[in-house]
């Protein structure tokens, strides 16, 4: 859009012929006054141009093809949700890496080293409360953003041919996001964590045939203990980060290659 010629008009003349209410005229005049002094819109347009220059492989979109330009503008803000998920993920990764300097996945001690380290982070460590809050909030925001992103994709029909694969990858991503949340929830090893773990073990055990094997593999036994915490820890800070980062990379690469779907 911004590559096109800018519309040239004379503010005063244009507004006079337009039949605006006094409030509207004042509103527009005030904003035009601001715009003349702070050229924020110009800088945003430079960013927009940059975006279109970088996305050379973007195929002609549905809206361009059928000259529907601008008809679907009200969907576009929701296109930010995928990036919003990514940003939340990065914030969680960075704050989590920093928390890793102070956390210990051990059930020994009174009540446990894991819990004591959390108490240390929350009460003694400089900016520790802030750090843990950042980690928890970004995790929750990520879950919400991913879910809303999925709704955006569904309601704009972006999952349709040829983007079926990315929808399936998305389902894997939202599942892994929740596993990330669950394993992290167990790490404080407080009452909430312990009983959430108990529920997990029992859910695993209820699986026909494979139940005992799954409980052993994921929770390290049929009752909770050091093995459980250690497995949750490795899943949360070693296994999932590599897997999820890679899959998000593939997911976004596919969007890059295929071009973004316009709403239709």
């Amino acid at each position, binding site marked *: 859009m911004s590559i096109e010629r800018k519309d040239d*008009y004379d503010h005063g003349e244009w507004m006079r012929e337009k039949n605006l209410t006094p409030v509207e005229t004042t509103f527009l005049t005030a904003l035009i006054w601001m715009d003349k002094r702070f050229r924020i819109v110009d800088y945003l347009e430079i960013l927009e141009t940059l975006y279109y220059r970088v996305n050379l492989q973007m195929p002609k979109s549905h809206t361009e093809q059928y000259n529907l330009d601008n008809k679907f*503008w009200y969907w576009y803000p929701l296109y930010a949700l995928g990036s919003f998920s990514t940003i939340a993920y990065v914030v969680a990764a960075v704050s989590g890496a920093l928390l890793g300097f102070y956390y210990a996945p051990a059930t020994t001690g009174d009540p446990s080293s894991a819990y004591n380290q959390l108490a240390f982070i929350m009460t003694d460590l400089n900016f520790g409360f802030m750090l843990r809050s950042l980690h928890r909030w970004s995790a929750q925001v990520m879950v919400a953003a991913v879910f809303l992103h999925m709704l955006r994709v569904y309601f704009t029909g972006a999952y349709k041919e040829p983007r079926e694969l990315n929808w399936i990858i998305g389902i894997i991503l939202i599942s892994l996001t929740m596993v990330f949340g669950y394993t992290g929830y167990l790490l404080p090893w407080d009452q909430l964590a312990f009983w959430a773990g108990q529920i997990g073990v029992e859910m695993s055990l209820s699986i026909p045939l494979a139940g005992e094997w799954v409980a052993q593999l994921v929770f390290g036994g049929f009752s909770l203990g050091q093995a459980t915490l250690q497995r949750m820890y490795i899943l949360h800070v070693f296994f999932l980060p590599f897997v999820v980062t890679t899959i998000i990379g593939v997911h976004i690469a596919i969007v890059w290659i295929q071009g973004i779907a316009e709403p239709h």
Partner: protein
Amino acid sequence: MAPDTDDATDSEGETRAREVEVPLRLYKVVTVFSTMFAVAFVVGGFIVLDTATQRASLSLSELDLPLAVLGVGMIAAGAFVYAFSTRFRAEGMGKPKDDADEHSDNG
């Protein structure tokens, strides 16, 4: 529904939001600046309200009433600026829901 009735009522006699078509560049100005003002007013309003009530910890008799009113007023002003800005449309922009050009058959 009758297409392209730009007056204030639709066929069922409900009042419809006013639409003002402006040039694209001006639409961007409206969007960018009114969003900025709205955000500043609403966030600022909450900060003022927090200050007036010491983060909602004071009793009714202790709180700084004028400051609290100012805070609520700022939040309302931010909401007003945002709501007001939504009546402006650039040329060719569809309207959500009641746009006659939009079909539900995937185009």
